[in-house]
């Protein structure tokens, strides 16, 4: 319809520029318009007063307006309005037609697959129409771009689709070929997670419009898709881990589903979840035991529900390295206390923890336990970094702040901040505010601001309750289910004592509160990250009651302490700490291996020889040397290619001369074709943005017939600037007739004819 009225398609007006061809000055047009308007005004006024019928001012004004508009239109036509637009020269330009050949295009919707839908769009004249005007090159694309001659070459088996990378290739070809436009037929599922700004900028620089034809349903009717499963990349053996699973579903509101964590097909944990209504993403956490040491490939899945349209997106694989190391914790206690006995007992049950302790039994004697050799801690609390930094965690019991020398206090600060260790401060008659910590250098480390008074420790019983943060935290989880866990905490026996630890600092999190006599609530367990490490305050020395006042088979006390101690040391790095920015390589090979090397005092080691021994799928092995990163002492890196899909395990080994500094293990996974199973709904947003940002347009398949015409108007490739006159547009004549007819009708109605 638009084209009938206006002679040209909308694109001509959208992309073209209005010009006046007569060459006469515009001021003359304005002057004639003003003169004509005035003359008509005078005539209308005179007639309205002298005729048989006297018209009111508004009526006379309307007549004048119609006549003036007609004059204006005719005058404008005399100036010869036209649209100047760039058009591609016929048969001198190349149009690249890119068809997504990835596996997601094999999804069947109704009677046809997406690929068949795309082929149908091309066959139903689009391809022919394009060929009439341009040289057409047909490509299929997945991970890479491939020239094809016929549509029969499309298979829908490519393991990935990289729209951005392939458009970049086309843009590069445009340097030597007159690429006038790109027609992209795709479901918009890009496995690299989007199209980079760099790619967009390159296409824009070459002025190549990308016209995207969206294939596939924009919203599945019944589907569950896991979007992310967050797990720690490493854990101590037997750790309780939490997999935080983010997913969305369509069409299953209020239905029950089963969330599972599996290792080698064997379920480690299973949990029923309720799918919430609405389009919003849903997040659920599932707890499971990490089990014995070793590399683990874990599948996090939501069991497919009946009628689900696509089941390949119901699970994700994640790697967890369960470490065989034993984390060492130093516990300094200023007086014999029951809490120490029961903390030791809880730690002894844990194969991944080693608890060394120094107990002040008398004013001048200490008793050491858990020491590695008779000389260790012989001089009391460590005064040298290499001695303290051999531990990953530190517990400070009922011991005055002044017991530590200023140098030792500074050392504890470095232990957390630089070494990345964890420090737990317990309550006691010589601890926290009563121990003089509020005015010591150690106050900085605490997650709470201590009261500025003494007498904060009371041997009075206190109840405990989790905060909302504590209910969500794995650290406080005694029961699998959150609701049961909160109830179990409420039923724990009263603490033997408690201490007012003050108020939490900004950034700290209170996981549990205690209720003292009179109902006053105070922080019981507060935690925070500090520098590279973490600190915590437990405002009691009386959790031992949880052990002594419950059946001996009850594990509340042991579980709490093991989890707290593991939390304390879980993130403490060794002297060699390996990492890789991405643990899962989706349809790509490049992996960046990085390592931080420290000496026993945790100072960066710049002169180490660092290598990664990589074990890959099928027993493949390779040694890669990591080179020092420029201007980052102690950091080493290497780029490596994981040639085969599967799990890789890299042992990073650092040496100084012949002396081994340390070693670490990291894991990564290369998976091909898996990402294609995700985000299977048409990504219209991506296709639309891509088209808009490059000067093209998003087309639905049924609109695509007009695409060939529209492509003609492009500045890319070999183009000429054409001028399209507008005076003979049908709409102009219709407007003239309409104005005259309107005037006549009005005059008749008002009796002024």
């Amino acid at each position, binding site marked *: 319809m638009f084209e009938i009225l206006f002679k040209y398609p909308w694109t001509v007006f959208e992309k073209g520029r209005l010009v006046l061809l007569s060459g006469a000055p515009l001021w003359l047009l304005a002057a004639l318009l003003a003169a004509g308007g005035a003359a008509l005004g005078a005539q209308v006024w005179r007639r309205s007063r002298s005729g048989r019928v006297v018209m009111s001012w508004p009526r006379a004004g309307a007549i004048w307006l119609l006549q003036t508009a007609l004059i204006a239109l005719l005058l404008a036509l005399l100036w010869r309005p036209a649209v100047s637009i760039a058009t591609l020269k016929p048969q001198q330009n190349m149009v690249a037609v890119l068809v997504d050949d990835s596996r997601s295009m094999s999804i069947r919707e109704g009677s046809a697959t997406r690929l068949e839908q795309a082929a149908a769009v091309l066959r139903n004249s689009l391809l022919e129409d394009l060929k009439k005007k341009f040289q057409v090159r047909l490509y299929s694309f997945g991970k890479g771009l491939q020239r094809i001659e016929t549509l029969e070459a499309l298979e829908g088996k490519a393991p990935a689709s990289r729209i951005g990378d392939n458009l970049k290739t086309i843009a590069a070809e445009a340097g030597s070929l007159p690429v006038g436009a790109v027609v992209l037929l795709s479901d918009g599922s890009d496995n690299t997670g989007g199209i980079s700004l760099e790619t967009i900028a390159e296409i824009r620089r070459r002025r190549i419009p990308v016209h995207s034809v969206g294939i596939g349903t924009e919203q599945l009717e019944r589907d569950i898709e896991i979007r992310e499963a967050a797990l720690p990349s490493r854990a101590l053996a037997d750790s309780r881990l939490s997999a935080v699973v983010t997913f969305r579903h369509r069409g299953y509101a209020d239905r029950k589903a089963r969330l599972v964590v599996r290792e080698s097909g064997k379920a480690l944990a299973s949990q029923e979840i309720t799918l919430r209504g609405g389009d919003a993403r849903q997040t659920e956490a599932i707890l499971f035991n990490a089990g014995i040491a070793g590399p683990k490939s874990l599948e996090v899945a939501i069991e497919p529900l009946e009628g689900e349209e696509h089941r390949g997106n119901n699970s994700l694989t994640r790697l967890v390295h369960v470490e065989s190391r034993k984390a060492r914790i130093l516990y300094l206690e*200023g*007086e*014999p*206390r*029951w809490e*120490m*006995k*029961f903390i*030791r*007992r809880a730690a*002894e049950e844990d194969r991944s923890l080693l608890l060394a*302790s120094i*107990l*002040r*039994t*008398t*004013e001048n*004697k200490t*008793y050491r*336990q858990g020491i590695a050799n008779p000389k260790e801690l012989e001089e009391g609390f460590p005064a040298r970094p290499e001695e303290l930094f051999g531990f990953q965690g530190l517990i400070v019991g009922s011991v005055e702040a002044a017991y530590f020398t200023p140098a030792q206090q500074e050392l504890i600060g470095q232990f957390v901040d630089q070494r990345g260790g964890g420090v737990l401060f317990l309550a006691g*008659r010589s601890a926290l505010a009563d121990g003089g910590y509020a005015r010591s250098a150690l106050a900085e480390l605490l997650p709470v601001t201590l009261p500025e008074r003494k007498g904060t420790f009371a*041997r*009075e*019983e206190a109840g405990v309750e989790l905060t909302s943060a504590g209910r969500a935290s794995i650290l406080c989880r005694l029961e699998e289910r959150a609701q049961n866990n909160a109830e179990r905490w409420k039923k724990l026996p009263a603490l*033997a004592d408690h201490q007012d630890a003050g108020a939490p600092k900004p950034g700290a999190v209170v996981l549990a509160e205690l209720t003292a006599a009179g109902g006053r609530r105070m922080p019981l367990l507060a935690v925070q990250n500090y520098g590279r490490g973490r600190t915590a305050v437990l405002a009691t*020395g009386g959790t*031992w*009651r949880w*052990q*002594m*006042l*419950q*059946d*001996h088979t009850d594990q509340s006390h042991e579980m709490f302490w093991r989890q707290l101690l593991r939390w304390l040391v879980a993130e403490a790095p060794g002297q060699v700490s390996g990492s890789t920015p991405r643990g899962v390589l989706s349809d790509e090979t490049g992996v960046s291996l990085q390592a931080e090397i420290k000496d026993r005092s945790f100072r960066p080691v710049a002169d180490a020889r660092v290598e990664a021994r990589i074990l890959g799928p099928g027993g493949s092995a390779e040694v890669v040397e990591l080179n020092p990163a420029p201007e980052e002492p102690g950091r080493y890196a290497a780029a490596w290619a994981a040639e085969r899909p599967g799990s890789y395990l890299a042992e990073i080994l650092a040496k100084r001369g012949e002396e081994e500094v340390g070693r670490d293990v990291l894991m990564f996974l290369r998976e091909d074709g898996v990402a294609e199973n995700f985000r299977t709904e048409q990504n219209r947003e991506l296709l639309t943005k891509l088209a808009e940002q490059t000067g093209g347009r998003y087309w639905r398949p049924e609109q695509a017939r007009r695409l060939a015409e529209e492509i003609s108007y492009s500045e890319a490739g070999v183009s000429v600037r054409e001028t399209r006159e507008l005076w003979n547009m049908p709409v102009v004549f219709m407007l003239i007739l309409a104005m005259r007819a309107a005037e006549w009708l009005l005059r008749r109605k008002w009796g002024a004819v």
Partner: protein
Amino acid sequence: MSAFQRGGFRPFRGGEEDSPAPLPADANEKTEFVFARLRYPSQRYGGYWGFRGSWATDYPKADRQFLQGVRRLTRIHTRSVEQVVDLDGEEIFKHPWVYAVEVGHWNLGDAQARKLREYLLRGGFLMVDDFHGTWEWDIFMASLSRVFPDRPVVEIEGPDAIFHVLYDLDERFQVPGIMMFRTGRTFEQDGIEPRWRGVYDDRGRIMVAICHNMDLGDAWEWADWPRYPERCASLAYRIGINYIIYAMVH
């Protein structure tokens, strides 16, 4: 009274004091450690009542005099007075260290034996003292075997931490009771050799420390009597203190 209910000193009003001692002014102080004396039914007198039960031997003077030493010699925050506990209520679970004397006469019922077993499995520690010879050993074992039918009583070897946790007790000898001044012998009945025995848990920690053929309680009680040998009183204090600290850290 309300202080007593919240964990302070609750005097035992059974009238069974064997060796009276004044109540210290700070008896109600709330402390980390409380000397818990186990009140058990004894075979000798039948049940708890009648003439004083054997559980109260040396009570309360031995307890209070020993605690003075604990306060003076260690950093243990201890109450100056003992607390009498039994195996009929739940109070004992608030005291992870408990002392039983003259267990050569104890006679635990099945329910009491079960409770003592539960107490020990939760992490409680029992020190028994002042019983002598084969006859009293057998009586002691008759009840203990109901507590732990499946755990052996073994000798505590010299290197065990319990003999080194504060004092190195490599040279131990028989600590005699006050009976020595009447009989002229350091031993009683046929208990000639002092034996330090124990029942261990599955992780090698002592749950029951058995001081057989010695009378540490008398040594504590009579430590202020000039005629009682200082070296015996000293060893008794050291053993008692070591046993407490051991129980608080193992």
